[in-house]
């Protein structure tokens, strides 16, 4: 008797589970089919394509070339002979100053290393100011956030004009004694700073919002205790606020770093990588190889370099998350 009912229950559970799974799949299908075709398959294909040579004609013209694309983008032969003849560092210097990939990597990393801390500092400053009792804080919050939603083309072209010869920025700087009156984006050192300026200006409001939320979570007792101990405002900031904000800063840094690695719009609109290769970035390099020169295999190999960089940051994030999120 018990045996039978147990069996029957098992049978019914099986049917129920099948039914549930079927229902679940109908929920998933509309999104998953699109996701699989337009994201999952291309992700897998991008790895495969980096080992092929293809100019984009019909599929039969695609050729398996092994690691050739990687040898080509890293210029392993030239960098190798340079290293053999003039030493290891001469080879590295050749890679980062002469090879397209090296230059793009150098520029992207320089841009990231400067932009991330600057954005963090600005957004913490904004959040601290707005966290004080200021009238119209909601309106100010919206104002500082607005650059983040404004379209890149309009913003970038506007900044481009503002940074031109006789533009408002140069005129203001000259009023303070600066001698520089050239278009920033045409100058090989200032072009990069123009891009950094726009990036920081655009995203500081976004991270301000995240910091504002985090500041609300800092227990007031900590400040009271610090005041009792005789800490001034600055000490309170460095010894209470900043440590309490550490998980947020960690999270914001990771998002900013990944965002910086993927920079394209600003560069494409403001400098197109120029002057020369002064602001050539990784994604711009991928775009040009893929959609201007039609070197599909080469472009895919460069894309893999970007992928590895981003995945490395993600791995760091996951491995350090516990340490920073709980302290």
């Amino acid at each position, binding site marked *: 008797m018990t045996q039978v009912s147990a069996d029957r229950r098992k049978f019914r559970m099986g049917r129920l589970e099948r039914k549930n799974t079927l229902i679940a799949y109908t929920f998933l299908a509309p999104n998953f089919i*699109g996701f699989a075709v337009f994201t999952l398959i291309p992700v897998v294909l991008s790895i495969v394509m980096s080992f092929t040579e293809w100019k984009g004609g019909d599929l039969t013209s695609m050729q398996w070339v092994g690691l050739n694309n990687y040898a080509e983008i890293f210029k392993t032969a030239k960098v190798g002979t340079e290293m053999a003849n003039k030493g290891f560092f001469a080879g590295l210097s050749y890679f980062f100053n002469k090879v397209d990939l090296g230059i793009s990597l150098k520029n992207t990393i320089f841009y990231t290393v400067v932009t991330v801390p600057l954005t963090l500092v600005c957004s913490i400053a904004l959040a601290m100011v707005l966290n004080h009792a200021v009238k119209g804080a909601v309106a100010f919050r919206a104002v500082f956030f607005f650059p983040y939603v404004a379209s890149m*083309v309009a913003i970038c072209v506007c900044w481009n004009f503002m940074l031109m010869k006789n533009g408002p920025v140069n005129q203001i700087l000259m009023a303070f004694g600066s001698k520089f009156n050239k278009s920033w984006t045409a100058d090989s050192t200032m072009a990069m700073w123009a891009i950094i300026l726009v990036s920081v200006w655009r995203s500081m409001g976004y991270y301000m919002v995240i910091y504002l939320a985090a500041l609300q979570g800092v227990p007031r007792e900590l400040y009271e205790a610090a005041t009792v101990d005789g800490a001034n405002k600055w000490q309170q900031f460095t010894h209470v606020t900043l440590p309490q904000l550490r998980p947020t800063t960690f999270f914001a840094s990771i998002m900013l770093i990944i965002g910086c690695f993927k920079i394209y719009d600003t560069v494409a609109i403001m400098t197109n990588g120029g002057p020369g290769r002064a602001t050539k970035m990784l994604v711009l390099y991928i775009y040009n190889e893929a959609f201007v020169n039609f070197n599909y295999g080469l472009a895919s190999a460069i894309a893999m370099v970007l992928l590895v960089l981003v995945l490395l940051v993600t791995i760091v994030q996951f491995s350090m998350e516990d340490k920073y999120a709980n302290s």
Partner: protein
Amino acid sequence: MTAISAKPRQHAPMKPGRVIGRTILYLVLILLTVFTLIPFFWMLSASLKLDREVFSFPMRWIPETFHWENYSLIWTKVPMLTYFKNTAIIAIAVTFIQTLTSSFAAYAFAKLNFRGRNFLFLAYIGTIAVPWQAYMLPQFVLMRSMGLYDRLLAMIVLQSFSAFGVFLMRQFYQGIPTDLCEAARIDGLSEYGIWLRIMLPLSKAAIATLVIFTFIGTWNDYMGPMIYLTRDVNKTIQVGLRRFIQENSSDYHLIMAASVTSLVPVTIVFLALQRYFIEGIATSGLKG
């Protein structure tokens, strides 16, 4: 959840030291506001000038005479209306499909038990970490072979099924007690009924966040339309504006007028819904 309110805190009556402190605070605030808004102000100002006035030396922040005709001129120089229409079609379609399908899929991930759930969810999560720029080329090849090159539909299907939407909605659904679903099941509601009558009404805030993120993201997208849309009749406002800039590179005043015009719709949406947008970021901390 950390509710974010920018409401001022209560303070005791001011001492002289505080007055100085607050003066500095407001000065910093004004400086930062000027830094943030100056490009928009300059854009507006330049859009109402004559082209030779834009880079006058010394500069004038307020135009001598307001040349409003710049704004009517741009519509004759470039098919702005077509660009606007295309962008609106893409943005609305993507927002609708994205919100609907991802809330549907998120329900399965959050509230249903089925075989392969963890594996499938891992596939979604895994691709969030993969930058789009790393697989845009094979995606393009695939889309072209489907005959979607230079068609608005390409931009729609490209952005409608992002893993981000599913992830965001699932996080929210997990916060809704499963007991609610159980009770509804006992009352004889089907899973579709539960999704429609319980989950959807309860997730208005998450849906609002997703809608705004998707809409603004799609409206401002530059690289996608740049790759896919080549004919003028198909261009979105971003790439259209870019074309206009390249073809009339010295008509500074007209470029600025077109830029201001391109910002109007997104500004309206932002001002109307900024609370949801900002609070959505504060609570989810996610990027759009």
